[in-house]
């Protein structure tokens, strides 16, 4: 009997893992089919956002706590690793984990008061805290305020995670990042914590009646989500070579981190990657073609696309593929 019980759920999780490996191999081979440098850059950015949005999804999708302030954790990761490198000469390979750790701690601290709030108030509180942090950073001389920090380049180096001429290394860096966060989400889905977090998302009173502590569950999800976001921020800083509050802490970034998961399928393993694969190219191309100076037409196109997707597929893009369609169709009842 026990064997039969294990059947479907275990098989489904194994299938997801195999699919993950196949997708990883395909994405690893992708640059060899794409010669165009602009397109390659687009793919790098898409992979970064797939990882970032998966990080957001750990808190927003699995635990149901919608954060509109994830740029804060992204910025903490970017600034921590950059400052450690420029001021102390510590490699970003280590710095990104320091940044991740600090970002995770920040997410925990933000959660301490904010998870006392329920429902939409958490989203609003994170939005306000994120905007406040961006303002403070823009006036904080220790981190060069609004001028930002340029990361000095001492030649191509894996040890310093620095590449200016070749884009291929960053393809694999971002792919490794996206794959790592995907794997973390996969592990969470099958773990005690993952079950508790989803219970918290679906019904707080029922979760409590089964012995699930709500507040610590939310804090743990926030810390892991924040840490994963912070690592992405550090990688972004190395990729671009320059950070300032505008590019690492702005509210629009918080939205950009959340959107792929929401459009792709919130609380699903594949939603963030699918969402990023659609949204990031469209966003970048609409800026390139229509120009960000032209009165925000690019944003209108972008907004129209999101509305069209939301109307056509309220359960997210994953429902096209019938991957865990049952899970996608949730939480709105």
């Amino acid at each position, binding site marked *: *009997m*026990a064997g*039969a*019980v*294990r059947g*479907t*759920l*275990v098989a489904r999780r194994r299938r997801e893992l195999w699919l993950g490996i196949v997708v990883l191999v395909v994405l690893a081979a992708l640059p060899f089919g794409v010669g165009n440098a602009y397109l390659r850059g687009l793919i790098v950015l898409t992979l970064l956002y797939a990882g970032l949005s998966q990080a957001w999804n750990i808190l927003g999708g699995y635990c149901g706590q919608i954060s509109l302030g994830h740029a804060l954790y992204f910025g903490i990761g970017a600034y921590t690793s950059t400052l450690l490198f420029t001021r102390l000469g510590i490699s970003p390979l280590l710095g990104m984990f320091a940044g991740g750790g600090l970002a995770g701690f920040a997410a925990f601290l933000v959660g301490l008061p904010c998870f006392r709030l329920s429902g939409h108030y958490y989203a609003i509180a994170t939005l306000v805290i994120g905007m406040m942090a961006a303002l403070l950073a823009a006036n904080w001389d220790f981190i060069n305020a609004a001028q930002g920090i340029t990361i000095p380049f001492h030649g191509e180096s894996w040890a310093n995670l620095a590449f200016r001429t070749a884009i291929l290394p960053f393809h694999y860096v971002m792919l490794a990042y996206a794959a790592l966060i995907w794997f973390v989400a996969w592990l969470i889905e*099958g*773990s*005690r914590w993952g*079950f*508790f977090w*989803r*219970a918290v*998302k*679906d*019904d707080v*009173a*029922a*979760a*409590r*009646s*089964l*012995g*699930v*502590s*709500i507040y610590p569950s939310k804090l743990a999800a926030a810390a892991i989500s924040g840490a994963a976001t912070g690592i992405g921020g550090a990688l972004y800083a190395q990729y671009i070579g320059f950070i300032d509050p505008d590019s690492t802490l702005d509210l629009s970034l918080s939205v950009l981190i959340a959107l792929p998961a929401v459009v792709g399928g919130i*609380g699903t393993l594949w939603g963030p990657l699918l969402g990023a694969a659609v949204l990031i190219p469209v966003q970048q191309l609409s800026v390139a073609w229509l120009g960000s100076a032209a009165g925000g037409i690019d944003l209108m196109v972008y907004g129209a696309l999101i509305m069209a997707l939301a109307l056509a597929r309220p359960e997210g893009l994953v429902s096209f593929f019938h991957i865990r369609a*049952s*899970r996608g*169709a*949730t*939480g709105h*009842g």
Partner: protein
Amino acid sequence: MGEPLLEIRGISKSFGSVAANVDIGFAVAAGEILGLIGPNGAGKSSLFNIIAGEIAPDRGEIRFAGQEIAGIGAVACARLGIGRTFQVVRSFDSMTVLENVMVGAFLRARRSAAAMARAGEVIEFCGLTTRRDVPAHSLSPPEKRRLEIARALATRPRLLLLDEMLTGLTPTEAQAGMRLVRDIRAQGITIIMVEHVMEVLLPLIDRAVVLNLGRKLLEGAPAEIVRHPEVIRAYLGDRYGG
């Protein structure tokens, strides 16, 4: 009957100026099925939620398995071995039946293989095996009630609180539900059932506590309860608005 599993003394609870419970006291022996009955507004739900830890009483004591539990909270109550269902069914709708029950099993299990095995047992016990891998939101209302019971049983409770589990069921479904309750008791689990429809409950329970207007009217065996003039008055009064 030895040391009771649950002992309630002097429980009072007010919501604003409304006294939901006034000085309630009774005891439940291990292995007993106790009915908590009374017309609408009698204070059953309030008392039920106080025992489950979901709300704290203003005054009074609750001893469960030798421990004082009044006001310790629902999570602590679940850990000590009090399981419950809800009057309005609360399923985790983004999960399958198996995953719903696994949440409960994870209270005692660290590893997911152990939680899955426990959940499988309970699902079979509750007659939901054929529905194991369907999303919880696609279950029929009686199936959802069974799911709630399975989820609570997965936590290995010593005391199970059932909130109007027979209400709204067809006679056939109610019969099946009553069989399930007897099977649960046969496993050594003590049960408190809240119902406001007295008739369905009487053949099932060992003893009843009758509440009316926030106070305990009386307690006793089902046969004594139905004959009692105050019970008849309370129910008829409620029904006919007298």
